[in-house]
């Protein structure tokens, strides 16, 4: 990978299984890498272990063996309370179903995160850059799905995280909305230089990522790297 500026995320031989009566292996010794400031996409069918992988990288789940290093921190070695600090400082989360707190306004939902970060970006700027500054006093229910996902992205980037994790951010959105949300993610990457790892089961999205990993039953089936990124606006499916 000669063209990499600096490796930021390294996952090596990650193994994870769930105990549900019998042990079900979900990740079977999987490895990926992502350079700083790049967008990585994990593609795969439902149930292939995408979310599990991302949760371990994000410090909300634990691996059985193998390692995950993020920006020089071995996440897989952190204790529970160290994981809290790691998530607090370094990771932004965007979920498929937005997960906004229903009784807080748009601005307040973003403040949930800026409230605990050391040097958050100015709230107004973040709201403006995701395009919902005029709706900051609305409640999530009063917004469309795409708008809610924008709030969720604003919430994730307000602390200017080193790593932004997006788990099927367009999974619940229609085509046009999906495209504009993807464009926003691309814009965040360009504007703030945030390293982004995104999950999707839509292979058309692969074009907008520097690195693409195809997952199949807990294993990497294929890894590709794009030299040229397709702008999200031009993606079709």
């Amino acid at each position, binding site marked *: 990978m000669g063209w990499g500026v600096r490796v930021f995320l390294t996952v090596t031989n990650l193994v994870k299984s769930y105990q549900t009566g019998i042990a079900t292996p979900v990740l079977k010794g999987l490895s990926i890498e992502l350079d700083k400031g790049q967008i990585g996409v994990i593609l795969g069918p439902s149930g292939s272990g995408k979310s599990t992988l991302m949760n371990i990288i994000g410090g*909300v789940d634990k691996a059985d063996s193998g390692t995950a290093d993020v920006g020089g921190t071995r996440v897989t070695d952190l204790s529970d309370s160290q994981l809290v600090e790691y998530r607090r400082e370094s990771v932004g989360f965007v*979920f*498929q179903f937005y*997960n906004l707190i229903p*009784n807080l306004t748009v601005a307040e939902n973003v403040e*949930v995160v800026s409230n605990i970060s050391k040097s958050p970006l100015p709230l107004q700027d973040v709201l403006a850059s995701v395009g919902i500054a005029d709706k900051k006093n609305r*409640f999530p229910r009063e917004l469309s799905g795409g708008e809610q996902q924008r709030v969720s992205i604003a919430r994730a980037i307000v602390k200017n995280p080193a790593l932004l994790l997006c788990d099927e951010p367009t999974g619940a959105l229609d085509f046009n909305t999906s495209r504009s949300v993807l464009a926003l993610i691309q814009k965040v990457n360009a504007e703030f230089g945030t390293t982004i790892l995104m999950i999707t089961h839509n292979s058309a999205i692969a074009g907008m990522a520097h690195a693409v990993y195809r997952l199949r039953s807990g294993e990497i089936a294929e890894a590709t790297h794009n030299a040229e990124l397709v702008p999200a606006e031009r993606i079709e499916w």
Partner: protein
Amino acid sequence: MALRKRVLRTLLENKGRYIGIFILIFIGSFSFLFFRGFSGNYARLINEFAEENKQEDVSFTTYEPIADVPALEREVGAIIETHRHYDVQLPEERELRLIGLTETVNKPQALTGRDLANPGEILLSPGFFNSNGYQIGDKIEVGGKTFTVIGTAALPDYVYILKYVNDVMAPPGFGVGVVSADELEYPEAVTVYAVRFNDRTNVKAQVSGLYNALVGKGISLSEWMDASTNKRIRMPWATISGMQAMSVPVPTAMFLLSCLIVGLMIRRIVRSESVIIGILYAQGYRRKELVRHYLSIPVLISAAAGVSGVLLALPLIAPSVKVMATLYYTVPYENIAISFLDIALGILMPVAFLGIACLLVIRQELNKPPAELMKGSREKAKANIFERVLKLESLPFDLKFKVREQLRSVSRLLFLLFGVMAASFIMLIGFAINHSMNVVFSGESDAEFNYSWEYAFKELQQGEPSPGAVPFNAIRCYPAGRETVEFYLSGIITDVPYVSDLLDAKGNELPKGQVNITSLLANRLRIGVGDELTVVNRLDGKEYSLVIDGIVQTYSGQFVYMPLSGFNKMLGMPEGSYSGVFSEETQNYDPAVLSGAKDLRNVTNTMDELMMPMMTVIISLAVLGALIGAIIIFLVISLTIEESRSSISLLKIFGYRSKEVKKLMLGSSRPIVIIGFLLSIPVMLASMNAMYAYLGEMINIALPILLSPGYVVISFVLIYGVFELSKLLCARKLAAITMSEALKAGAE
């Protein structure tokens, strides 16, 4: 049916909460039946006793014997029976009032042992009998005679045993004993005419008729006691009214609180199961069946709690009535019965309260079409008016978050507020009563007397009082047009200290040469300095007008003071005459000239005796308040956590430390708890003042309700401690919420 099993599972899943609700309803049903049963039985016992044993309507004493009693009886249509009584000092500061046995009015009734049959026998009041550890058959030495104790008795004119009718309590060691009339040949014994009218309607008018007849005949009265204001007769009614009053608000508050919280919980359950409900609908379940299913939880809980409350109250009523009947208000206690209606109400009321509340909630939810129900309950996120209107932008985030957390459910917030108010109210009542009693009766305030003894003479005295004796004169009177308010108008001498210092609200000594009124009486009559007060002499009906010059700040006593010389002049009494004296040392008066001698030093002793049972009541009330507070706060915090599970899970994902999550989620109730407590103080004071004013009117007592800062602090610490404890209990629930809850949200 599968639905039935789900009910049990729901109950078990939230054991803690349902136990809390069970206890609230239990307290409601218990207090309802207990207070109703107790006051109902007591009222009946007292009424029956008064009827069957011919309680007097009025009694009086005169300076000269009435010559023709039968003629008077015919004239006023009454039975008038005379009896004599005589107070005998016994060793160890005990005192026994011997009362001659009567045949027609105020007939005593043996409670233990048997009725009087032979000379030399005595029946004792149960309190005196018990405290002296007597046995039936004991011989006791009283007033130079030996009597055989043959049992205990209740007297219709001494239901509440008082030495002096205007006292609040009898001195410790005081009791009454009934002996055959022949035993009372003591020359100093007082002769009392006890009157009971034949026509039992409009007794009040007949009492005035008798009074006018006596005054018209020129008979001068030395004492006049109308049963309607006689504490010995009326005091129990104050307690009964108090209990009856308690039998309504306490259970109502408990049932309403339970309704609020159960309604809230049921709504949550129904909403969270709306998908299942939609599917059941679609499969042909009728709405009625589903309503019945969800209704079974509140009905089960309230019926179980109602039955338990009733079952615990039932066996306690009879013993409590008996204790009351022997220790406080002496009446025969037989045939204690509890009405089926009360029992049924004790069970059905909570069932109806909760059933109806939940029915409304459930119907509202189930009225939606199946298609909408199947879509799920996303709409619970809808913002209410308060959330919408509130502009919180400029507040710090933590505060905003907490405010939003509280506003999220208005009914939950009201439940917490009213619940904490109810709990604090119950706690504060006990403390306030205790403190008020302490201030009124013990040395904490104006009960610091300047003299040790008070002597009252049967007849007006003239001439120089004996050395060390400070004379005063007084009449019992009432304000024109308001007979229920009785007080003393006292003439006092101005050049030596009065029995207690006359201080105004600022603590300055008031001039004794003017007309001063005690603050309690002034408040009751709603008069102030400069107002005119027309008083009527209770014994001869003459009216006098006074202008108030000063108000004596006091928590006890209903008096109007004026200089002795002016008093005598106004009443047309000889200059320098007096009806009693105060003295530092004991005086050796001939008992024959005295109508009473009062030891002013043992006021505090009396208090101690009263405080023992008081303490139990206060501690129980404090414990009850704390328990209710704990249940309510625990329920609210646990519901708050339940409703915010996904937010809590999110906060954890975002890297909130567990201490921060705790602070945000558990701390939001704190201001409501504090506000609820603070609000309960004025509410308690206002309602207790209203209650005391009402009771005071019944028994001519003016009682202030006072709250000491110390007790407020104690109550607050208790309530706040309960809050912290509930937080501690709920912290585990908080810790148990995993991050995967939010990660999986919406994924099913």
